C-alpha cells in the first residue's frame, strides 16, 4: 500500500487537505514515512498561505515570453484516424465489445456523429477498447471528412442519414432497444 504512491501523489493529497495542522501532518508521516522530508517541507510552504511575490521583473517577463514561444511550438498530439485504420473484423469486435450495432462504428468512421453528443462514459469505454485516450478518440472523431477514407466498397450495413447527427439519433435510427439506448447514453459517473 505504502510504495504504490509517488511523492507527487502524496504531496498533492496533503496539499488539498482542508487543514494542515499537526494531526494532518502526523497522519501523513505515519502513512507515508518515506516522504517525511517532502511532507515537512510542504507543511512549511503551506503555512505561508497564498504566496504572491508581487510585480514581475523584466527578466521574468522575458522568461514568460520565451515560455510562450516554447509552448506554442511544442508538438500537440498527433491526430490519428483511429477508425479508418480498423479492419472490418476489428470494427465488428469494437461494436461487439461496446454493445452497439456495426453501423454506429461506421458512422464514427465517416464522421457522421456530433462529437459533443457522445456521453463521456461511452467515450471513455471506447477509448479503452481502442487502447487510446479519450482526447485522442475525440480528436479522431473531429477530423475533417476529407482526410478519412470514405466508404467505396459495397456495404452490407444499413445506411444511416448523411449529415452529422447526435449519438442518440444514430442509436435510434439503428433501432437500438430503449433500455440498451438508456444504458449507452448514461453519463452518471461524470456529473
Amino acid at each position: 500500500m505504502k510504495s504504490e504512491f509517488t511523492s507527487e501523489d502524496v504531496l498533492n493529497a496533503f496539499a488539498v487537505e482542508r487543514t494542515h495542522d499537526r494531526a494532518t501532518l502526523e497522519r501523513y508521516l505515519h502513512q507515508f514515512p518515506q516522504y517525511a522530508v517532502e511532507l515537512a517541507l510542504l507543511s512549511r510552504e503551506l503555512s505561508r498561505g497564498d504566496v504572491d511575490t508581487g510585480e514581475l521583473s523584466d527578466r521574468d517577463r522575458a522568461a514568460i515570453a520565451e515560455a510562450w514561444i516554447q509552448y506554442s511550438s511544442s508538438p500537440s498530439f498527433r491526430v490519428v484516424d483511429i477508425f479508418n485504420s480498423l479492419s472490418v473484423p476489428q470494427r465488428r469486435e469494437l461494436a461487439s465489445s461496446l454493445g452497439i450495432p456495426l453501423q454506429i462504428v461506421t458512422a464514427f468512421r465517416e464522421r457522421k456523429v456530433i462529437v459533443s453528443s457522445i456521453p463521456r462514459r461511452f467515450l471513455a469505454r471506447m477509448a479503452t477498447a481502442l487502447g487510446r485516450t479519450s482526447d485522442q478518440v475525440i480528436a479522431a472523431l473531429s477530423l475533417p471528412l476529407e482526410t478519412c477514407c470514405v466508404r467505396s466498397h459495397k456495404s452490407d450495413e444499413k445506411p444511416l442519414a448523411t449529415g452529422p447527427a447526435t449519438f442518440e439519433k444514430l442509436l435510434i435510427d439503428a433501432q437500438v432497444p430503449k433500455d440498451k439506448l438508456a444504458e449507452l447514453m448514461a453519463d452518471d459517473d461524470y456529473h
Partner: protein
Amino acid sequence: MIAPLRKKDVGGKVYTRLPHIEKKLKELSALPRSQISARCAIQDKDSSDYLPSECLVYLVRENRSRSFDECSEHLFKALMERVMRGLPQAVSLDGDSERLTDSNVRDEGRHRFLEMLANDRHEYVEALDVYEVRFQMALATLRVDAQRKIYRQDDPLEGIEIDPATGEIAEKVERAAGTFDPLDGHALDDPHYRLRLDKAIDGLPVLQKTIIEMIRQGIPIESKEIGIVNISNSLGKDSKTVRTHRNMAYATLRVALTKGESNEV
C-alpha cells in the same frame, strides 16, 4: 460541458474542482474568446471579472490541441505570471544581493510547470489536475519539488552524524544556540519577526529546515510510546543527531535574527 478531472487521490477518488470554480467555468464557456482574453489582464482579485487561477489552468489546457489564437497567448501568459508570482524571489533579506538557491528554485519551478503544460499538449498530464482544484496549494508542491531537486545537487540530506561516544559537535552547537528559541510563541505574533524568521529558515539546510518545521508543528523529537510519530523515527535519525541539528539551526537563526543587536542571551 466542462471536462471532469482524471487524477485520483491516494484514496482512489477522482479529484474534483471546487463548486465555485465549476460554476465560473460554465459561465466562462458561454463567453466569446475576446472577452476571456480581455479578462486575462485583470489583477484585482475582488473584481467579478477576475479569472481565478484554477480557471486559467483549465482554459489553457482546454485549448491545448487546437490552433492558437490571441486569446491562447493571453491565457498562457496570465497563467505563467501567476506561477512566477508563487515562486521564491531571488532577493536576500537585505534586498541587495540575489540568493542563488532561490534563483535556481524559481527557474526550476518555471521549467517544471512549462514542461507539464507542453507535455499536456500531446498526452494528458494528470499532475496538472491538482492546479485546477487548489492552485495555490499545488504551487506549494511545485516549490517543494523544485527545492528538492536543487538541494539534492548542493545540499545532500545526509548532514553531520554525531558520534554518541564523544558528543563533541553536539556540545559546541548547544553552546552556540544558547537558550535562543526562534519559535517562541510571543515573538511569532509579530508579523515582521515572522517574515524575517521565514527568510532565515529558507536559508537552512534541508534536514534542519525539516526538523524546525516538525518542531513548529509540535511533533516530539522522540517518544517512548510505540506508534507515536516522532522526528527521530520519521527521519530515521538518532534523537541526539536530531537535537544537534536543531541546535545548529537555532544557532544559525539566532545570528540571522539578532544581527545588529547584542548577542548576549
